[in-house]
Each structure stands twice: as C-alpha cells, then as structure tokens.
C-alpha cells in the first residue's frame, strides 16, 4: 500500500471510530422501550383469520342485509300499490331493520363493495333534500353518480317519514303523486341491485381474499383494518361529530344526523358500534383481537385487545346514556352528545395507530404520490 493510500484508510478509520462514538447515543435513546419486542405478525397464521372473517362475518352480514332489503322491497311494493296505514307501518319497520343490518355490513367497504359503490349507493347522508325533491319531481331515477346524496336509506328516510307532519300526510303524498311511488321503488331496486352484485362477487372474491395473507396494503388483513377504521371514523365524524357541532365551532347541525326523519340515529349508532366491536373480536379465536393477543401486544403494560374492548364499552355506555332523537339532543343536551363523541373518538388511536403498528401491517392509508427515500 502506498503512503497516501494508507493515509487515506487511516483517516477514514479514525473518522469512522469518532463518529461511531457520537452515534452510540442512538442506542441510548431506545432504552425506555420497556421490553418492546416488535413482534409483528411474522409467524402468525393469517389464513384462518381471513377465512373466518369472509365466511363467518362479512358474507353473513351481506346476506342478512340482502334478505332484509328483499323484505323491504316486498313491503315497499305493497305500500306503493296500496298506501294504507298498515302497509306504511310494515314498510317503515322493514326500513329500520334493513338500515340496522346495513350498519353491520358497512365496515367492509373494499373489494366488491368498493367496486359497486355500495356505501355511496346505500347510505350517502345527509340527504340533499332539494336535489332529491327535484329528482322526484322530474322522476329522475338515475342513481349512478356515487357523489349524489339523493338515494339509498336517506332517500327512503325522507319518503317514509319526512313527506309531511305525520303518517297520514305520507300516505296522502303517495296517493296523490305517483312520482313518490316510482321513486321509492327505484331507490329500493337500486339498493337491492348493488347488494345482489356485491353478494355475487363475494362468491368469487372470497377465495382471492382468503389467500391475500401478506402484510402489505391491499392484503386481506390490511383491508379489514382499513375498512374497520374508515367506518369507525365515519361513526365518529358523521354520526356524532357533525351533528354535535364539535367540527363547526359548536354550531350544531341537527338536520345532518343519520336517519333524521325516522329519528333512529341513536339505534343506528349503537348497532354500528356493536358491528365495529365484532369486527375487532370476530366470533371465535381467529380475530384481530386474538392476533393481538398472540403477539402479546401491549401498550403501557396493558393488553391492547383489552384496551380496545374497554374503550368500545366506554363509547357504547356514553351513547346508551342518550335518550330520544339525536337531532333534538344536540340542542337540548349537547354536552352528553359531545361526551359520547369524545368517548367514541378516543378509540381511533388504538384502532388506527396502535393496532396496525404493532402488527407491522403497512400503515399506508395514504401512498406517497411520488417517490420516497
């Protein structure tokens, strides 16, 4: 080795040693991690979990919703044909059951549901009343735009409950204007069509889904977690946040509750919280909760699965404290509504940040639009 080369190597070595010393601080900074093992789901068998979700939770939720909507369609046909008080009662009851069933299917807005814009088709709320009335007037029953708020349950909510002061007024409207009848039928048919498409697609999608056992975004686990989170944020923001005014300087928005006319907003919230909890716990031992337990995921010494369930219960308890119509409560007892909002919101950190992080599921809710480094 020539002198200058040895010199070069020596300088390099000295600089190397000195800087390495500086950076020994890098290790120090992690010492507070209290036994954090970064277990990930590396040796966890995801496949049974995915088949459990698809065959025991997702597909049954769609089937239930589909059968409720089929009943709804029958009752709607009957009411349209013969707008009596008894027939209105039964279509209203069928509407409520279907709307509740939707809450259990809402967390799975991926794959077929995404393809057929199921969520947009069934539950774009708050309803754009002006546009809906104009469409009824013109008998415009084109529901293909996902961004339109003129269809699905919110439209039926208006048609069955919101056309007048009371049921008699609703019956009058349906009797006197054939457009209401046609529009109601078109709305129900559109909903059922989407559902049939989704149910049919799941027959083939299921096996593909069950085999997406990886951890990248778009894999089965990431779809479930993403879906759960999207839906949970929806509960937090649209079902509770917007009406209570926490997102609008305290100015409440009573008419923006889900199911404003039928007034079943709170029942729907309860059902959607139950549904979220079920997505987390599954119906057995192959759930997100059991995956977290398998890797012994903890936060500040507590099991994350326990923390999540406690938070679900806390949120649920606060929502159950609310009695009556949510649209009234935001103006009469908004403090209680805001408390419920906060207790429900608290969960977001656990579901959206902690769970995917400790499972080492790619937390790419947002892909970089360009390159990264």
């Amino acid at each position, binding site marked *: 080795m020539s002198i200058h080369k040895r010199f070069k190597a020596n300088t390099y070595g000295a600089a190397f040693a000195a800087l390495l010393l500086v950076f020994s601080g890098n290790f120090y900074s992690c010492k507070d991690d209290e036994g954090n093992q970064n277990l990930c789901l590396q040796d966890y068998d995801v496949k049974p979990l995915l088949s459990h979700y698809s065959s025991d939770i997702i597909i049954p939720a769609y089937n239930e919703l589909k059968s409720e909507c089929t009943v709804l369609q029958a009752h709607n046909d009957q009411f349209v044909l013969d707008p009596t008080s008894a027939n209105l009662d039964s279509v209203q009851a069928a509407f409520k059951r279907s709307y509740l069933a939707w809450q259990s299917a809402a967390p799975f807005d991926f794959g077929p549901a995404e393809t057929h814009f199921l969520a947009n088709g069934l539950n774009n709320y708050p309803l754009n009343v002006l546009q809906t009335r104009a469409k009824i007037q013109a008998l415009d029953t084109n529901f293909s735009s996902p961004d339109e708020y003129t269809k699905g349950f919110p439209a039926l909510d208006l048609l069955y409950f919101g056309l007048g002061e009371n049921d008699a007024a609703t019956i009058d409207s349906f009797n006197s204007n054939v457009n209401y009848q046609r529009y109601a039928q078109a709305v129900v048919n559109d909903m059922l069509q989407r559902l049939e498409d989704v149910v049919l697609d799941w027959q083939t999608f299921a096996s593909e889904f069950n085999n997406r056992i990886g951890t990248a975004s778009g894999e089965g686990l990431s779809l479930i977690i993403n879906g759960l989170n999207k839906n949970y944020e929806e509960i937090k923001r649209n079902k509770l946040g917007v009406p209570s005014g926490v997102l609008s300087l305290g100015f409440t928005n009573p008419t923006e509750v889900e199911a404003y006319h039928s007034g079943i907003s709170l029942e729907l919230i309860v059902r959607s919280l139950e549904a979220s909890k079920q997505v987390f716990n599954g119906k057995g031992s192959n759930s997100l909760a059991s995956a977290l337990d398998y890797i012994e995921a903890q936060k500040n010494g507590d099991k994350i699965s326990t923390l999540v369930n406690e938070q679900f219960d806390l949120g649920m308890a606060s929502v159950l404290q609310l009695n009556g119509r949510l649209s009234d409560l935001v103006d009469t007892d908004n403090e209680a509504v805001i408390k419920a909002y906060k207790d429900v919101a608290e969960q977001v950190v656990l579901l959206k*940040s902690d769970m995917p992080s400790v499972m080492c599921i790619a937390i790419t*809710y947002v892909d970089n639009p360009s390159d*990264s480094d």
Partner: protein
Amino acid sequence: MSFLNHIHDRVLSTKSIWPLVTFRVLFGLTLCVTSIRFWNNGWIEKLFIEPDFFFKYNGFEWVLTPDPFWIYAAFAGLIITSLCIALGLFFRPMTALFFVLFSYTELWDATNYLNHHYLVALLALLLLFSPAHKAFSLDALRKPGIQQHRIPALYIYMLRGQVVVLYFFAGLAKVNHDWLFEAMPLRIWLPEHKDLPLIGGLLTLPVTAFVFSWFGAIYDLTIGLWLSLKKARPFAYATVILFHVTTGLLFNIGIFPILMITTNLIFFSGSFHEKIYQRFRSVATVRTARLVAQPHKLFKWGLIVYFGIQVLLPLRHVVYPGNVLVSEEGYRFSWRVMLLEKSGLATFTVRDKTTGRYTEVINSDYLTDFQEKQMAIQPDFMVQYAKHLAHVYQGRIEDPEVTVHAVVSMNGRPSQRFIDEKVDLSAVGYSLKHKNWIQSW
C-alpha cells in the same frame, strides 16, 4: 505540516477530465429523464397544483408556489437545462439555471423533501464550479479553445467527497437499536414483497431482514472506502450495482439507484473512462497540451466551508434533546434514509380564548392526504399548519388558540403522545431552536 501539504498537493495535482465528463453527461441525462417522468406521472398537478396550502423550510417561507403556468415552465426549464448539461451546451449558465430551478421547485413544498433530491441540488452546485464542459461537449466543439484533458484533481475529489459523505452518514444513521437489533423497519417492508418470484418467500423471514439491515449498514459505512481503494474498486462497484438495483426493485425510491450507480463511476481512473471516449476521437481530440488553470483561492476556501457544513449538518441532531427519529429535529439534510415506518394522528382544535368556543379541525379540508400524513409526524409542519389554521379562523374567532392531540407510532411500536397538548402552536416561534413542547421518548 506535511499532512496538510500532502492533501494540498494531491488535490491540486492534475487528473484526467474524463471521469468528470462521464459524470456530467450521465447526471444531465438522469435528471432530464427524471424531470420528464415527474411531469408525465402527473406529479406536478398532484403535488403543486392540487394543494391549497404549502409547508415551507425554515428561512424559505418567502418562496411561494407560483401559478400553474410557471410551475410547468419551471419543469420545462429543468428538462431543457438538464439536457444542456448532458450535451455541455452553454454549460455554466445552464448548470446555474438548473441548480436554481431545481432548488426553487424543491422549496415550494417541504412535504416533498427527499434526501436524493437534496443530493441532486448539491451535485448540481458542485458541478457548476467544475470545468466539466471542457471536453466532449458542444461548448468545446463551438469553441475548441476551451478544450482541456487535464484538470485539477480537486474537481474529481469534491464529487467523490460528496458521495463518501452521503454514504457514510446514511450508514451512521443506521447504527441504532431498531435497525441493527430489531431489523426495523425492514422487517415490516420486506415481507410486503412476498409475491416476488424466487426471492419472495425469503423476504418474509425475519433472518432476511437482519441480513439486509446489517449488510445495508456495513455497505453504507464502508463503500466510500472500498471505492477509493484501487484494488477493491471493481468489486466495490459490482456491490454498488447489486445494492442499488436490489433496493430499487424493493422500494419506491425513484431515481436514487440510477443516480448512485452513475455517480459512483467518478471513482474510476481517467484511463478507465478515456477508453469510452476513444471512439469519439473527432470530438475528443486536443491538439495542444495547455496549462491547467488552478482553481481560485476563494473556491478552495468555499469547498472547505462546504464540506465543514456537510459534516456538521448530519450531526446537528446531537444538540437537540430527545430521539431524533421521534422529534425529527435535525432529521432533514442528514442522509437519514429508510429508517422509519412511522405514522401519526394529529387532531387539531381551534379555540376562541375569549368565548371558549372551539372546533376540531378536519385536516382534509386544508391539506392533501399526503401533506396530512407528513404533517402528522413532523412537529415543525404542525406549527406552520397551526398558524395557517389560526389565520383561516380569523374573523370567525376573535382570539384563536390552536392545540393538537398528536400521537405517533413507529417501527412496530404502539403509539405515543408526542406533543404537549396545552401549547398554542399558532403562537410558538418558528425557529431552529429546540421545541420544548415535543415530548420525545
């Protein structure tokens, strides 16, 4: 001081111009393709036209994002100037213009900070002062008088020096607990490629992540040395290709692999490069051996300062308390690449201090998804955003106060709160001083 004399003599000895010429041509071409790609992928629209609000670098708040026409004009300028660099046409003004335009586009939105874009700006700056156009260039064809085949070695060494700095500090940043002993975040990222042919299955094994982590750290720390040693060079360069092609395939890192594979050719000798140009005899002939102009004294001092800064910047994090990976104080311009799988949730509240009226903020009303994602992990962005929110709510609120509930989780850990929830971020000064409201752990 034979030590310093030795260095001085070496950097002022003359060397063949050809490694520098190769660098100029490939750098120009790479950046030309990059600029076209950026345009073609619709990123101009997505990153610079869609957002309503832009994050800025400290001290460069005054650099505003211009109207769409000028945004596209700037990128057209990048395409043209980078092509001119490759061709060696009007070399100095074009390189200067490229450097200015490139830096300008980078300053529009700090959300888009990338270490390898920073590297491009630095390389362009160094290139600007070099005589890289004095051979195999249209300038030399136009004005044969400027042709020169020997140049002060300094111009080669400064580029090598930049590469060594980059690699070494990238390696040093990997010398940390997570990278070496948890194989994080590679243990999260590698299994995402389980469907790759042949190696896909291997990538899901934890041991693979450890091998990659350690190899990556050792590569980064020492590759500068191996490239500098003549005997090791061919093997080192083969490793360079292997390393960058692999990372290029596995990760979404854009032009970085090509930039490094081409730039590293600067380590090869003049005679190695000369062989390539022998086929272009007509362009490359120099009739007279002219006197080699020595670099200006100011330039030499400038380089010393430059490299002083290059060494100090990546180390500045030691003067900030807390973990740089969490606080990100001293994170940028430090060659910290691929270190973190990190995500945050930041919920802002704007409160009227007089009436107590408050509102939670829906971030997507003001930021793009990508901006929100970056903001939620970078405290200095939170300050800029809080100030923006205070501004937006002026009029609706008399005396706004903006606080944030922010958690961040990284490298497979549960999340942690990391910002003091009581601090009015719209009122804190925006400076390089430590932000004592960051609760780093």
